[in-house]
């Protein structure tokens, strides 16, 4: 019996041992490798990729598509909501009527989309500065990132006025009331100018980039954007100098035929200074539904039919202005690529500048959105000259002649504004342009659009963000 007991104990011990040794090293067993790239992947050789990811944010819906179109275009006198009466596009009908509240989804999306882009830019700038790498490439990449950050902040200032300036946040613990507080418009402009000055200094000319890098921010793009930023601050001397520099660089020229500018074959054409590179073929990397939301609706159509030209815009073109037909798709029209538009489509017209001849029905069409082009350089140049004194006719008439018009007889600032409207219709400029010119109330009220002075110069800060900030973020007046 004693022996039996011993055997049992031995058996017990063996079993316990087997059980315990099945996995001798517990922590090794449960430490498994990740299957995705994490922060450790962000090394110096991936510096260009960090910058590419900022460009990618230009493709996002919130940055460039429905909300941005609503605020910059549908809200203005150039465009109506469009679509069909029952399809409100969430809040696009309200934008069209300037029935604007802090809870509109477009107001929230533009805010979020741009700050997401700024986060990517901040991250690239901060990480790349710390990399040990080729200093020339390093400075160029930081220059590109700062150009894009300036672009995002400029669009935020246009939309909301002064906004919080975020340079580097890496953890949730850094969030305090100071960070959330809005800076003045002047502080924001100073920040934007510093970014653009750095970009001008460090970015190559368009012609200096190898062909494979076509589409990256150039010195010319930074100069043009800074000229526009200067114009918004009425810094006319700077605006004139910068546009003179762009003209003198001989990097750009007007495209002969206005309509060609928005055709696929003229992407990154001679007039292009900066445009969003959209790739439609799989794997697609294009501006999300940019063409879809503005595509012709109904019979023969392919899109949602928003952002349609107003009768007022159509009426403003003179009979021989080639830009009208190049800007607007009319019902019953046969487009340049042979596409027939049914005469029965709803609305009086559609935005041709958003039309993609290729992959028309796709949600991502490959339509490059032209953000800065040489014609605008000439217009800023002309406007600066009209104020500072100088030869307005040379820049202005280049625009007019290309449009099939006669040389200008009226060289006033007012006349340049009108030219600018027709030249740049549907290029996300009109609403802010009217505010900049200080005549938004006068122009819009005359057309029955209830613009309220002291309120509608800027859009409201998203209510949800004000609530989240616990009062640190202050609403714009009268909202």
């Amino acid at each position, binding site marked *: 019996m004693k022996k039996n007991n011993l055997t049992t104990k031995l058996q017990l011990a063996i079993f316990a041992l087997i059980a315990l040794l099945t996995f001798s090293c517990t922590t090794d067993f449960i430490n498994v490798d990740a299957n995705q790239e994490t922060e450790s992947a962000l090394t110096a050789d991936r510096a260009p990729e960090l910058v590419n990811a900022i460009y990618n944010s230009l493709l996002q819906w919130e940055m460039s598509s429905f909300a941005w179109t609503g605020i910059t275009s549908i809200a203005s006198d150039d465009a109506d909501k469009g679509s069909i009466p029952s399809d409100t596009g969430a809040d696009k009908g309200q934008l069209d009527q300037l029935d604007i509240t802090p809870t509109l989804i477009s107001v929230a999306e533009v805010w979020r989309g741009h700050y997401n882009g700024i986060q990517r830019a901040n991250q690239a700038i901060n990480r790349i500065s710390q990399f040990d790498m080729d200093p020339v490439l390093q400075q160029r990449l930081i220059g590109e990132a700062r150009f894009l950050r300036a672009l995002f902040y400029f669009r935020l200032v246009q939309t909301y006025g002064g906004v919080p300036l975020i340079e580097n946040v890496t953890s949730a613990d850094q969030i305090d009331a100071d960070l959330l507080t809005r800076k003045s418009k002047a502080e924001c402009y100073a920040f934007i100018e510093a970014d653009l000055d750095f970009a001008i200094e460090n970015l190559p000319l368009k012609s200096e980039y190898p062909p494979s890098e076509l589409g990256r921010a150039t010195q010319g793009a930074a100069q043009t954007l800074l000229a526009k930023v200067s114009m918004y601050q009425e810094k006319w001397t700077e605006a004139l100098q910068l546009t003179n520099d762009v003209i003198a660089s001989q990097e750009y020229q007007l495209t002969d035929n206005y309509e060609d500018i928005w055709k696929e074959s003229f992407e990154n054409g001679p007039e292009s200074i900066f445009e969003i590179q959209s790739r439609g073929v799989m794997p697609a990397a294009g501006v999300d539904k940019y063409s879809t939301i503005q595509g012709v609706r109904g019979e023969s159509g392919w899109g949602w039919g928003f952002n349609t030209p107003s009768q007022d815009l159509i009426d403003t073109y003179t009979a021989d202005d080639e830009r009208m037909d190049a800007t607007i798709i009319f019902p019953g029209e046969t487009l340049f690529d042979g596409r027939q538009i049914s005469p029965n489509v709803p609305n009086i017209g559609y935005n041709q500048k958003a039309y993609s001849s290729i992959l028309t*029905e796709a949600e991502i069409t490959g339509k490059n959105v032209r953000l800065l082009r040489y014609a605008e350089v000439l217009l800023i140049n002309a406007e600066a000259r009209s104020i500072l004194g100088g030869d307005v006719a040379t820049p202005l008439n280049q625009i007019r002649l290309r449009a099939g018009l006669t040389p200008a007889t009226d060289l006033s600032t007012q006349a340049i504004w009108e030219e600018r409207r027709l030249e740049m219709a549907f290029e996300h400029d009109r609403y802010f342009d009217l505010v900049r010119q200080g005549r938004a109330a006068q122009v819009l009220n005359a057309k029955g659009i209830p613009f309220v002075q002291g309120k509608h110069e800027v859009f409201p800060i998203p209510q949800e963000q004000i609530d989240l900030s616990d009062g640190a973020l202050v609403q714009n007046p009268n909202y």
Partner: protein
Amino acid sequence: MKLNTTFFLLLIAIVWGQNLLAQTLISGQITDQNNLPLFGATVVVLETNTGTQTDLEGNFSLEASAGQTLSISYVGYTTQQITVDQRSTYQIQLQEDVAALETVVVVGYGTQKKAILTSSVAQVDGEELAREPVLNATQALQGKAAGVNIIASDAPGAASNVIIRGLGTVQGGRDPLYVVDGVLTDNINNINTSDIESVNVLKDAASLAIYGNRGANGVVIVTTKRGRTGKIKINADAYYGFRDILTEVEMANASEYVIYSNEALRRDYLTDNDPTNDNSTFGFIPTDQVYDTNWLDEITQIGLMSNVNVSASGGSDVVKAFFSAGFNEERGVLLNNDFNRLTLRSNVDYEIGKKFDFSHRVGIQLATGTPQDYSLFTSAYKQAPIVPVRDENGAFGSSVELNSVANPVVGASNAFKEDKNKFFKIQGAFKFDYDLLEELTFTSRFSIETEYGRFYAFRDRLGLFLAQNPSNTASSFEGDLENPANTRLTVTHTNTYRWFLDNYFTYDKTFADKHTINATLGITAEESQSEFLSATRNNVPLDSNLNFNLNTGDEDDTQLNAGAISVKDRLYSYIARVNYDFEDKYLFGGSFRRDGSSKFQEGNQFGNFYALSAGWVITEEEFMEGSVFDILKLRGSYGELGNQNVPLNVLTATTGAAGFYAFGPNQDLQQGITITGTIQEDLTWEKTNEFNVGVEFTLLDYRFSGEIDAYQRTNTNATLQIDLPDIVGFDPFNSHVGEIQNTGVEVALNWKDDINEDLKYQLGLNFSYNKNEITKVTNPFFLEQLGGFINNGQYTKKIAVGQPLGSFFLYDVEGINEDGDLVYKDLNEDGVIDERDRAFFGSYIPKFYGNFNLGLQYKQFDFNVDTYFNVGNKVYNGKKAQRFGNENIEEIEFNSRYTTGRPSNTTPRAFNDVPLSSTYYLEDGDFLRINNITLGYTVPLPEDSFLKNARFYATAKNPIIFQKFSGFTPELPGAPLGSAGIELDAYPTLRSFFIGLNASF
């Protein structure tokens, strides 16, 4: 056993020698109540302590003298004693010991006696589940266990939502853990209900703590049938039935539709800003319509379901085997939607040595299904009756000029698509038991599970494009691309595997007849991983024989391939449990699990989970002698559980489509990479603590029994999303910032009586109450996630402190104004109706639910009725609310609408706008449904018949529902922030009628 037999033989020899003269040889046969021989039953002469066991035929013979007592015992049967008389042969029938079967409860890594159990475990007998003619075992479980809320769908092959004691998590996994014969798994869709011996639902911390960081959502333990000793018994069960939609919604007919739409159109013209439109008749629908299509009829048919199960069970004292095969075929009520399933099971127990047992449990499922898009039900609801299925030229009717609804028959038919899903799942557990001592057993179990899914989706894209709109032409397809994707085939393969290794000791001993200790101690390890691979080719031939073959498509770069493999999920755990009782009267229990999980970051991988419990069997006290109670037990428990099924907290770099960008004249993609957020490094499992008190009783000679439990379970660190202010530009991330509480009461009562030999009956009632609430949030940036989107830009649900999960967040409709428009309440009284005027109006999760059932047996007839009810929840009429313009309306909406001549205070005027999400579309979800009525007749058979048992039965499943909801069904499973409780693209509840035959031989 061999030793025992030798011992007995020896004894017999000795006894024989002593009492040779008085002994005579007697023999006999032992059978069960169906007269099947019982092999291995023990027959003992009590006076002499001599005994034997029955052979394969149930026969025995031994020496006994008249006047002595024979005791016949067999596991699972009531022990019988008979007095030996002058007869030399005996025919003895043993009765199955129902009470004895019920006394054992299956718990984690072992079993426990119900009488001394100190935790809350609901037990459902497999026979009760098998009575439900449903494919999915969880659907059969509906209403059968208190505290288990099951929202089921009648869609072919669909799984149900199972919520045990309320939802305790937002971001984490909500489903209970299923344990099938020791295999821890996600669902029991692969288990044939007739293979189930019992289902045990573990509900309180005392029973759940042994499952550690997967216990927080409750555990459902499924035990499959095992072979019984004796001759092979074959059982066959077959039923066949048909089904249709239980509740249909009456839609407006063609002329009503035209009137309504034109009223709405006129209204649009009057309210837009173009005065020239006011007298326009452009766009009005002509009143002389040719067609009046009932779209629901066009896309549905009578559903059919058939089921055949065959099982064989039998064994000797060394091998006991159970085998079953089940085949189920279902044709859905929606066209081209079916599901077929074959299940095979082999469960065998081997006795290898006197101390060494081995067993295996292996189940295989093969299933194929044709999936269908349930948004077709919404399209059928919305499509205008004036649109023909096919026009006079035979082309599919199109409504492009009216509305944006597709022709439902185009989608329901296989004209432009073909789909097939196939599943293969194998699940097996292999277990060794070794008795180290009489009271100490070592168990080692290895289990595996692997599931393969194959999904084929063929689309005739050009055909569909042409059918959608008569003005579409082949040349306008895909923007006149050079090589358009006229057809497209996508094939996806998925695989998931998991394995487990469990090693544990079980100790069971009673000291001095008073102190009983039952303990378990062990280690388990497991791993799981899943992957998928998906490939697409364009321009696969239209020929249906070829169209699942990827190689027949274009070989260019238009195909898209995708695949991913998950991170290995590993756990390494220590388990322990001790139960002690003093004279079956004072009961104490403790259980513990230490889980190390690979899901979390180093330093935060190990967690300890435990529970303590105690019970008092009052009826064991002397003062209770002679009381009305047979059993009265009080018990209570407290413990801490975890839910490791929370989102991963790895800060991944964003690449691919969210990072790349095209540069250069050829728009070549360059990679991009960025980090779009931050994480909480120490994120771990969610911790839930749970208090439970319960009382169990049986009285009036075991006729009336019941169990009442009250609990409070608190998820103290619920994972919620943190959304920092947008200026930071970070994606929302997860953090432990919430507290979610469920408080409830469960009652289960049962009355069972045999009035006489011929008439027996049973009544059962269970109901559960649960209050759910997010009680606390500790971070100001907690994201009040929105949900319940109904695809028209409107959302319906939101998560917020002080509200139950799944709450609807809507505009409050006050009434209808003089223009016939809905008037919304201006909650914040700022004169504007906007987002800030929304309020909470309750959750889709019921506060009360339960079941009432009645069973009757009269002579050869048996009759069962089962009802299920659900009270105190809300459902949203999503299909009605998802309006854009010119969709059809319900007849009642048409009849009661506001018109100029006839104001209405219930229904707005005709309109064609996207309506705001409001209480106008929110309805009470209360219902009472007759779940099942079954009538059976057992054929009386002669004793020597080849057939041992034959029963015919007829079942009506869901014949009647009493519901407040005006839609098709108030039973709407889904995710809490998703489609749950919203009738949109939902499968209707069906009523079914079956006839069946059950035979054994």
